[in-house]
């Protein structure tokens, strides 16, 4: 016992500073070399330059200045709404061929499911002759203004990772969302409102949670600001009882003065962003209640959207989205919920649940396009509608049995989104799926391609828009993504 300790002690005594330096020479040499080649290589670059436009954005002349992204969390069924498949109707009720099932993973489908034809009737609409189902009577009025992409595909078949992939470019949490990237790159056009706002139509939050509008490794001021449906639109934006706006101003001034001197002493940029956040919050006390008050809209506009004051609804949020972009908010993210039509109960059945959901969004999203158009905003506002994946051409058979309601399982290979405004062609349908809507067979568009296209419309080259974090450059589309040029005017 003691012998062991003694040996250890002796050994430590032998290890002198000379030994240490001798053993470390290689490392020291490396450090010396790094400092010779430039100190920035020594500890990884830490670009803290403060500049009016440090990112040199936009890279080129933008077609769109702002984005409204309507995300239908749960994944709407493309086969009931947009992608008309008469052949699938003929195959209705037949066993699904094994070739479609081999090597595939589904969230719930087991064994051999039956094929399921479209549950609603389709008709051609508009000058473009675009197919739409009877679920979207209002939307049929604006088909000539939108581009429908039928060949979307994704990598993830569960909601949370798939939502993250759509919103942040990665299926794992921790990356900045597209709205954060855009506001980080382009800033806000309105100094009194946050550049990136998030509106949720009541009900459930998206399963990806707040990561879906997080700022990831970007400075925290670029994360999405969620607008609540009742009470203060933004938490703590109004003064507590007994606190007047004057006193608030004085106290903020005092805090900012202290922060100011703190910054002078330590030169930490996060202090600056803290100061700007306080200033922004003070300005928002006036501007946010103003812009979020839809009672200021005339009756016929509220009627057009189907918005009712004080309600938590997609309709209210569409109207709000228009009010926000009108004031120069850069990125407005809407989340609707309850689109996951598995057929386990009435509310998640294709026949009734989907009808109810479409009734909720059809009128407001149509009104949004029309309203943006008449105000001249559609010209430079990009509207994107879509879910996180599609739904199978097979009927879901959870547990291997026939379920009481009609439903479809999650499907990554093909789904439909649409885009409008902001330099996107109107009245076109892009991409094709096979006869039953299982695979995209022409002009496939991956989630990263969609993201690249959105950034492109804002004047951003998605390959050049990077942020250095943990020793490497990150971008929204990471190592993939191609701009879908055929969609652009």
């Amino acid at each position, binding site marked *: 016992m003691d012998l062991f300790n003694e040996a250890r002690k002796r050994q430590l005594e032998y290890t002198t500073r000379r030994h240490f330096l001798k053993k470390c020479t290689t490392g020291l040499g490396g450090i010396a070399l790094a400092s010779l080649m430039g100190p920035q290589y020594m500890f990884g670059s830490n670009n803290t330059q403060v500049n009016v436009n440090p990112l040199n954005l*936009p890279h080129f002349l933008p077609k769109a200045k702002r984005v409204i992204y309507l995300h239908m969390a749960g994944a709407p069924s493309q086969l009931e709404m947009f992608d008309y498949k008469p052949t699938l109707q003929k195959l209705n009720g037949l066993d699904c061929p094994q070739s479609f099932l081999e090597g595939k993973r589904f969230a719930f489908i087991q064994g051999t499911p039956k094929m399921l034809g479209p549950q609603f009737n389709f008709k051609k609409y508009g000058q473009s002759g675009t197919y739409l189902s009877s679920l979207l009577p209002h939307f049929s009025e604006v088909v000539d203004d939108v581009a429908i992409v039928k060949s979307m595909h994704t990598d993830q078949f569960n909601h949370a990772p798939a939502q993250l992939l759509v919103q942040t470019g990665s299926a794992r949490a921790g990356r900045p969302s597209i709205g954060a990237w855009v506001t980080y790159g382009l800033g806000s056009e309105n100094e009194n409102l946050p550049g990136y706002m998030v509106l949720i139509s009541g009900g459930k939050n998206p399963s990806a949670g707040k990561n879906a509008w997080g700022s990831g490794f970007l400075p925290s001021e670029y994360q999405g600001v969620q607008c609540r449906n009742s009470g203060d639109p933004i938490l703590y934006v109004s003064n507590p009882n007994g606190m007047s706006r004057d006193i608030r101003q004085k106290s903020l001034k005092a805090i900012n003065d202290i922060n100011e001197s703190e910054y002078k002493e330590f030169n930490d940029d996060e202090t600056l962003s803290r100061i700007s956040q306080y200033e922004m919050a003070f300005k928002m006390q006036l501007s946010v209640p103003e812009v979020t008050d839809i009672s200021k809209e005339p009756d016929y506009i509220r009627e057009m959207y189907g918005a009712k004051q004080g309600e938590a609804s997609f309709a209210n949020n569409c109207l709000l989205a228009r009010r926000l972009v009108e004031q120069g908010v850069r990125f407005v993210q809407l989340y609707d919920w309850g689109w996951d039509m598995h057929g386990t109960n009435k509310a998640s059945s294709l026949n009734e649940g989907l009808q109810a959901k479409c009734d909720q969004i059809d009128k407001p999203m149509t009104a949004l396009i029309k309203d943006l158009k008449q105000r001249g905003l559609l010209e430079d506002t990009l509207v994107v509608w879509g879910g996180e994946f599609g739904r199978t051409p097979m009927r879901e058979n959870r547990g291997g049995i026939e379920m009481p309601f009609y439903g479809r399982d999650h499907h990554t290979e093909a789904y439909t989104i649409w885009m409008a405004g902001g330099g996107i062609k109107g009245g076109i349908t892009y991409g094709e799926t096979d006869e039953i809507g299982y695979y995209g067979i022409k002009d496939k568009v991956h989630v990263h391609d969609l993201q690249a296209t959105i950034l492109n419309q804002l004047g951003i080259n998605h390959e050049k828009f990077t942020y250095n974090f943990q020793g490497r450059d990150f971008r929204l589309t990471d190592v993939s993504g191609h701009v879908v040029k*055929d969609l652009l005017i």
Partner: protein
Amino acid sequence: MTFLLESNLYQFFGRFHAMIVHLPIGFISLALLFEIVSLKQKVELKPAISYAYFAGAISGIVAIILGLMLASGGGYNESTLNIHKWTAIAMTCISLLLFFIKRYQGKVYWVKRSYLFFVIAVTSLMFIAGHNGGNLTHGSTYLLEYAPTPIRTLAGLKPERKRITNLDSALVYQDVISVVFDAKCNVCHNADKSKGDLLLTTPENILKGGKNGIVLVAGDAENSELFRRITLDPEHKEFMPTEGRTPLTKEEVQLVAWWINEGLSFDKKLTDLNLTDRIKSSLQTVGIGLKKSFVESLDLAEIDNKIIEDIRAAGFKIKTVANNSNLLEVSYSVYNPEPISEEKMNQLLHARSNIIWINFSNIDLSPQVVSKLGQFENLTQLKIQNTNLDDEGLKALESLKHLEYLNVYGDAITDAGIESIKRLPALKKLYVWKTKLTPKGINRLTNELNGVEVFSGLE
């Protein structure tokens, strides 16, 4: 030992030729350097020189053996290959000879006298062999491809034909297909290195095909070998371009297919063929038919930073529309308690020609301010909705010759303002919702303004 007979193994070793071949060049150059140094200085370099020649000769022999293996694969221009081969062999022999002369002090008289001749010979042979080797690998046009015209004429090459990039006059072969072939195929399929006996440099050779016959079937891309090869899976052994060279882009493949299906024309114009929208957009990716908008054609000097600062101080938000652009966009915050004054406008006018977008919506605009808007000669977009603009104000805008987008919704303009709007020659989009225009007036606008989209809102 049968594996030695496999030609693949020959190719395997042969490809190291490209690496080893640089060694004799280096050694002989080194020897020459030493020769020059030993002329001037009294340094004893004889052994160094002799060993450099020796190393040059040995590596030369290895390179020649590998080179012969590589050449056995075929596909090289015979005469260039012969020059390359024999000059290289001669160079190696002389290098060896020089080694012996140096080593054994050249006691024989004629050897001593001709030493300089051999040095010059080995140098020239090295250049000739090296240049021809380069031609074999990269094609004879490679070296001077980007040379300035005087050098090209000196070398007896045609001055570069100026490529036509205008959609209406560009030729399908000369301006599109041959450009694609040159960029992606002709490194290996040229007069010096016709891999698979296929040359893609001239129409005759393209039609002639390669060692397995023709590669193009007019009107039938699907059955054309060339098309099959460029559309295979990139991992496939027969995929072209091979050896990890850059493949054709999706658009280039599409254009080649289109050219084949449209009948393999070598002299027709693009417009003589069936031009679909998709083909047009693919053509744009290879630089044909890029339309320049008015804004893109503007070439203006940067506005002085001092002027921009003054404009900012006056309360305007002003910034360039894109990075590396000198064009500016201007807006005025609705939260700014001070309305825009005449003086502020005068300040803004210092940057007038560079301003292409103005957003003065939702604020108070005095008639004096509006009257100055007509001076922004390059303005293409004016957002002036929900202001106190009236018919009188519209008159001030008549001088905006390049205005494409005009938003006056919510403004107090009436049918009397229609004449002013009609004087805007470049107008494409007009927003007149919630104005005092009568339905009749809006009808007039829609009917009388050709090519203008009029947005009057919901009925």
